[in-house]
């Protein structure tokens, strides 16, 4: 009976109402996420629009939105890049230690320990930075200003409060360390065992094995992880807001009392007391921050995903 066969072929997966509802719900939730992300951009733009079209003298500072945001953007980029410069090598070393150096039995526990660094709320890093790190940094800053003052970063004069860009950068570095090292760690763990064993069998020392087998395999992950860390550092708010004593302005000087603000910290500091066009200006700066972090994160994910596709490790 050919008709019956045809019928079963046509209804291979019978669609019950429950199925349709459930599939619709879950697809809807997925689409909702895309809508939310688009909504973030759209609503920020709507609320930032009055500031973007307002006459320059209405903007706080009186010289227009671009002039207002530029020093903030500079401070944001400077602190994030320097934090990354400290955190990236450390993160790679930590990932190496956990995957290749630590005794196998305690390696996982050590991984948890590093992950705990990520669990500490940012406000606590801020309090720690200003209460512990800032006083500790005063003496070394003075030393840096005296002996390395010819480098623009350490031009000084060193402040006696320790509320400097240098401390903010170190706190940021500590905060992005866990995420960066977690991604790198994952990549190192997936290094093909055969590559490692082959190079060891050829008489390579452990470091030579790592240099020839592990690092090349993890290279794009290291780049991606660094960019993820950069994204985190760009958007970090409270730690910078608490630690940094700001005076605006664009300077590379890390250890003086006059530091550039960052976008996120500026919003946190000024938003609660702002009204009218000032709020719109702050939201406009938030929009800039959103755009920058979005770009950085998309690039990072693209780099990491490309490795995932070609590695053959999954």
């Amino acid at each position, binding site marked *: 009976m050919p008709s019956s066969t045809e019928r079963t072929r046509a209804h291979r997966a019978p669609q019950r109402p429950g199925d349709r509802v459930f599939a619709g719900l879950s697809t809807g939730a997925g689409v909702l996420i895309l809508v939310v992300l688009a909504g973030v951009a759209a609503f920020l733009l709507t609320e930032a629009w009055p500031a973007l079209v307002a006459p320059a003298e209405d903007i706080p500072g009186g010289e227009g939105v671009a002039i207002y945001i530029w020093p903030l953007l500079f401070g944001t980029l400077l602190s994030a890049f320097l934090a990354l410069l400290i955190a990236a090598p450390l993160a790679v070393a930590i990932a190496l230690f956990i995957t290749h150096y630590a005794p196998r039995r305690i390696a996982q526990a050590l991984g948890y320990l590093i992950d705990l660094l990520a669990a500490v709320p940012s406000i606590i890093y801020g309090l720690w930075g200003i209460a512990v790190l800032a006083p500790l940094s005063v003496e070394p800053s003075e030393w840096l200003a005296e002996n390395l003052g010819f480098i623009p970063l350490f031009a000084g004069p060193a402040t006696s409060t320790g509320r400097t860009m240098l401390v903010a950068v170190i706190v940021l570095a500590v905060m992005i360390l866990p995420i960066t090292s977690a991604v790198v760690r994952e990549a190192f763990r997936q290094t093909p065992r055969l590559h490692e064993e082959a190079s060891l069998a050829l008489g390579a020392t452990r470091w030579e094995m790592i240099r020839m087998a592990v690092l090349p395999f993890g290279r794009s992950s290291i780049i991606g992880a660094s960019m993820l860390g950069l994204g985190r550092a760009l*958007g970090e708010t409270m730690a910078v807001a608490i630690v940094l004593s700001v005076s605006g302005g664009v300077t590379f000087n890390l250890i003086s009392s006059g530091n550039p603000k960052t976008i996120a910290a500026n919003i946190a500091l000024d938003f609660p007391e702002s009204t009218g066009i000032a709020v719109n200006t702050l939201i406009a700066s938030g929009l800039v921050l959103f755009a920058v972090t979005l770009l950085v994160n998309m690039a990072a994910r693209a780099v990491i995903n490309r490795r995932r596709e070609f590695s053959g490790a999954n």
Partner: protein
Amino acid sequence: MPTTTSRDQGPDLHTPLNAAPLTHGQLPRRAPQSVFLAALVAGIALLLSGWNVAAAAIVAGFGYAVVVYAWSRAVEGPRKATDRLVTAVVTGAFLLALIPLISVVFTVISKGAPRFDDQFFTYSMRGVVGEGGGAYHAIMGTLIITGLAALISVPIGLLTAIYLVEYGRGKLARAITFFVDVMTGIPSIVAGLFAYALFALIFGPGVRMGIMGAVALSVLMIPVVVRSTEEMLKIVPNELREAAYALAVPKWRTIVKVVLPTALAGIATGVTLAVARVIGETAPLLVTVGITSSDNFNPFDGRMATLPVFSYYQYVTPGVPPDPALNRAWTAALTLIIIVMVLNLAARLISRLFAPKTRG
């Protein structure tokens, strides 16, 4: 046998290889440990002679690396020496990363302990000037707002993960995966501004409500829930699904009755970790919920206090004398860190005790 061509070019196999040594020297088995002990002793000696801790540790660490490198290079040759140096550097980097963790925990406990008393957990800040007062209102606010955020994010995150694992094919699924990843990188302050902008369009500028904070936290929480749930659903063995289909169970019932229960422990772990991640967020709550000194447990009506924002304001606007407020700030930080650590511990326990049954 074609042995004609290589006779002149090959190595001379008739002279024994006694010129080059086949083995290198080796450091004694306990060499690194004994050098480390020596460095430790030297460091302590420096400490006792009046150096500060950091300088002594740095000198001892460098001393260890240099001695091990030089000794190994003299005995074992440059390759092994480099290897030992890298081992020292990598281990040192790891220990260096532990310093902030230990220092943070120590600082928060020692500074937060003095006010960690009954009054802190039972009083609000209403009418309090100087001594006394507590964070009851802020703790309740944090619990309410985080609870609401979980209430919003868990269903959305769960359904999205189900879509990605069970239904998603093609472009839409790939776009969602990618943007969920990107969403994990949204700065928390931007999430706060988003919630503000959304509600400002509806209620007018200057609006502050608890629910705004919950929305902002959901933006941060949803991607975390999606990621962890997705990982958990992926490791549910396909045999379970196929067995259900073979019994003519509809797909949605298979997901609800077979897939989700199997992955439940992992999902619970993921949700707990997501809650732990957002419960300490300060910036989004600062711009959406604000702060108040009295009890307000209605998330749809005006400002609320939350623990991180409470801690922040106590620290930056302490008043005169500053000490009581600073103490309250540190105790709030201590409470917060305890909550986060307990949540993390709970997550690990859940995943340990109710591990997903992968061998169906």
